[in-house]
C-alpha cells in the first residue's frame, strides 16, 4: 500500500514536470491549469503516502534520508501550490516542480524500509522540529526558483533580447516580491525549527547547544538569510543582489540538509 502511494506520487510528479515544461515552451492558460491539476493530484497522493507511512511506522516519517527527501518534496509542492493560488504564475511551476520530482526520485536511492526509532528520536519534538525545518527549507526552495527566474529575466532585459521567453516570465517586481515573501515565511520557520531543536537537545543530550555540525550549519543558514533580510532594508540589495544571495542561501541550506549528513559526522547523522 505504502509503495503504491509512493510510486503513484512519483509517476504523477513526473507527469506534472512534463506538463510544466510543456507550459514553458507553449504558455497557454489551459496547459497551465492542467499542469496545476496534475500537480495537485500528485500532492494528494503524496499526502496519502506520508499519512499512511505515519500510521504504519507509528512516528513522524522524517527519520532517515529516504523519508526526509520525500517530505522535503512534499513541503515544496505544498508551498508552491499556495503561491500559485495567490500569484497565478504557472511558469514558477516549471522551475519548482522538476526540483520536487528530482527530490522524490533521489529518495528512491536510499533504503525505504521503516526502521524503529532510536532512543534519541523518541520525543514529541520529532514532529514539530522536522516539520518546521522542512517547511522552511521548502519556502527557501521556492525563493530559489524565483531568484533563478529573476536572473534569467534580468539577463533578457539587459541584453535587450525581448523574445518569447521574456514575455513568458513574470515581471522583475513580481519575482522579487515572491522571493521576499518566501523569505518572510522561511526565516521565522527556520527560527522555530532551531529553537525547537534546542529544547529537544536539552532533554536528550543535556545541552541546548553543542555546536554539533548540523546545529552549526543551520545557524550558518540562519545568519545568511538574516543578512539577506537586513540587506533588503537598504535599496541597493533588492533585485539582483537579493536574488544572488537567495541562491547562495539555498546552497548553504542544501549543505545543511544533505552535506552535513553525508560528509560530516555528528549527533545528527541519521542516514
Amino acid at each position, binding site marked *: 500500500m505504502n509503495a503504491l502511494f509512493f510510486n503513484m506520487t512519483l509517476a504523477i510528479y513526473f507527469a506534472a514536470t512534463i506538463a510544466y515544461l510543456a507550459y514553458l515552451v507553449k504558455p497557454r492558460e489551459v496547459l497551465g491549469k492542467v499542469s496545476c491539476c496534475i500537480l495537485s493530484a500528485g500532492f494528494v497522493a503524496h499526502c496519502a503516502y506520508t499519512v499512511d507511512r505515519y500510521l504504519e511506522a507509528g512516528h513522524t516519517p522524517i527519520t532517515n534520508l529516504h523519508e526526509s527527501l520525500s517530505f522535503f518534496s512534499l513541503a515544496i509542492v505544498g508551498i508552491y501550490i499556495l503561491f500559485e493560488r495567490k500569484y497565478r504564475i504557472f511558469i514558477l511551476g516549471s522551475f519548482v516542480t522538476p526540483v520536487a520530482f528530482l527530490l522524490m526520485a533521489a529518495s528512491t536511492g536510499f533504503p525505504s524500509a521503516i526502521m524503529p526509532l*532510536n532512543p534519541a528520536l523518541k520525543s514529541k519534538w520529532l514532529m514539530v522540529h522536522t516539520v518546521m525545518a522542512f517547511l522552511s527549507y521548502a519556502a527557501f526552495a521556492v525563493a530559489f526558483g524565483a531568484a533563478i527566474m529573476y536572473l534569467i529575466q534580468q539577463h533578457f532585459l539587459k541584453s535587450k533580447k525581448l523574445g518569447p521567453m521574456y514575455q513568458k516570465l513574470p515581471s522583475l517586481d513580481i519575482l522579487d516580491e515572491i522571493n521576499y515573501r518566501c523569505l518572510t515565511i522561511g526565516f521565522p520557520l527556520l527560527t522555530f525549527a532551531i529553537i525547537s531543536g534546542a529544547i529537544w537537545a536539552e532533554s536528550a*543530550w543535556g545541552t541546548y547547544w553543542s555546536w554539533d555540525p548540523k546545529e552549526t550549519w543551520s545557524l550558518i543558514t540562519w545568519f545568511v538569510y538574516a543578512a539577506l533580510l537586513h540587506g533588503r532594508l537598504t535599496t541597493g540589495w533588492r533585485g539582483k543582489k537579493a536574488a544572488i544571495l537567495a541562491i547562495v542561501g539555498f546552497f548553504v541550506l542544501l549543505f545543511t540538509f544533505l552535506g552535513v549528513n553525508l560528509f560530516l559526522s555528528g549527533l545528527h547523522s541519521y542516514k
Partner: protein
Amino acid sequence: MTTSNRGFLETLWDFFCSLKLAISLLILLAATSIIGTIIPQGTPPPEYLQTISAGKYKFYQALGFFDMYHSWWFILLLYLFTVNIVACSIKRLPRVWKAISEPTLVMDDKFEKTLSLTHDFRMDGDAAALRDKMVAFLKGAFAEPVVTERDGEFHLFAQKSPYSRLGVYVVHLSIIVIFIGALIGSFFGYKAYVEIAEGTSTSVVHNRADMKPIDLGFTVRCDKFTVSFYDTGAPKEFKSLLTVIDGGKVVFDKRPVIVNDPLTYKGITFYQASYRPAEDAGLYHFTVRERKGGAPVKISIQQGERKLLSDGSTMQVLESSQEVSKFIPQFQGPAARIEVTPKGGGAPQVFIVFQNYPEFDAQRGGDLIFSYDGSEEKMFTGLQVAKDPGVWVVWAGCFLMVAGCCMAFFMSHRRVWIRVRKGEVTLGGSANKNQPGFQLAFDALVDKLKQQ
C-alpha cells in the same frame, strides 16, 4: 571634549549603528562558523593530527581552531554583534515608537500623495452626516477610528496591530537575552560526566572541561541499568533506575531515566548518555550436586573469587560467554569455563559447563556434578550531568524570539484614513509590510463602501 574627540565618538556610534556592520557581522559569523564543522573540536583525534603538518597544527592551535566557538576572536565577534544590535535598536526605536504613539491622524492632500492606496467617492449628504456614517463603517469593517476636525473637514484614522512594528526589536532583545542566559550557564554551570555501576552510588561527578571532581552534595545510586533491542539489533531503549538520597532521605526512589527523559534534582540534571558492561563485576550462578546423592546446592560466585565446595575442593570461574557456539559450534547458549582444585591441592581440573545442557557434566565422571545457571552481567550506566542556571533565561529568550518573529513576519501595522468633505469621501491606506496582502483588504474595503 574637543571637536575631534566628539567627531571620533560620533563616528564610532555611527559605525556601531550601521546596517552595513550588521550585515558584515552576520556574514563573518556564518563564514567563520564553518571552520569548526570541518576541523574536529575539543581534543582532535591523533589520526587527524597525523594528517596535518606541524606548522599547520601550530597555526590552528594559535588561532584556537580546536575550540573555535570559544576562541577569543569568535567571542569578540559575538560581542561586536551584541553591541551592534543594541546600538541599532537604540537608534531606530524612538522613531518607531513615535509612529506607534503619535500616528498621523490627518490625511491632507500632501500626505495623500505619499500613499499608494487611495480611493475617492462622491457621496450625498453634508459633512457631519457623512462623518457619522463613515465612523460606523470603519468601526464595523476595520477598526474604531479617531476623528479630527480641521478647516470644516473631518479626518478619520483607524489602525490595526500597531505594536507589530516592535517585532523586530523584540527579536533583537531576545538574542541578547539568550546570550545572557548562555553567559550565566558558562559562569555558574557545568557539564560533567559520571559512570555508576549497578548497585553502587556516588556523590562526585567529573567536569567534562577539566576533569576536576565536583561534589554533588547528595548521593545518586544506580539500582539497575537495562538496554533493550529491536529485532533488527538496533537499540530500542537505555534505562537507568536512579535513586537520589539527600541527607539520608530518599528523594527519588528507583526513578527510571531514559534518553529524552532526564532526572533533575536541585538544579542538577542527569541524562542517560552511555553504558558499558562492567569488566570483572559479573556474578555467576551454578548448581552443584554430589554424584553419590544428596540435595543440589546453589552457588553464586564472582569473577576472580575462589569458593569452597562441600567436599573441600575449591572452584573459580576462568571465563564465560553468552554464546558459546562462536567457540564450540556444536553447542549453543551461555557457558562458563571453570577450574576445580581438589582438597589439599593437587592438579586442578578445568572444564566447561553449559546452561542449555545441565546434564552434560555428569559424563565427566567427577565426584561433583556442576551445572551452569547463567550469569548476571553488571553494567555501568554513563550519565551526562549538567547544571545550567541560565537555561531558563535562554528559554525566556527563545519565547521572546518566537513572539517577536510572529509579530515581525506574520503581522503588519495597517492604517486607514478617511477624509470627509461635503459630498466627497476619500479613503487612504497603508501597511508597513505585505503591501499586496493589504491591497486586497483595501480593495475589499472600497467595494464594501461602494455598496453602502
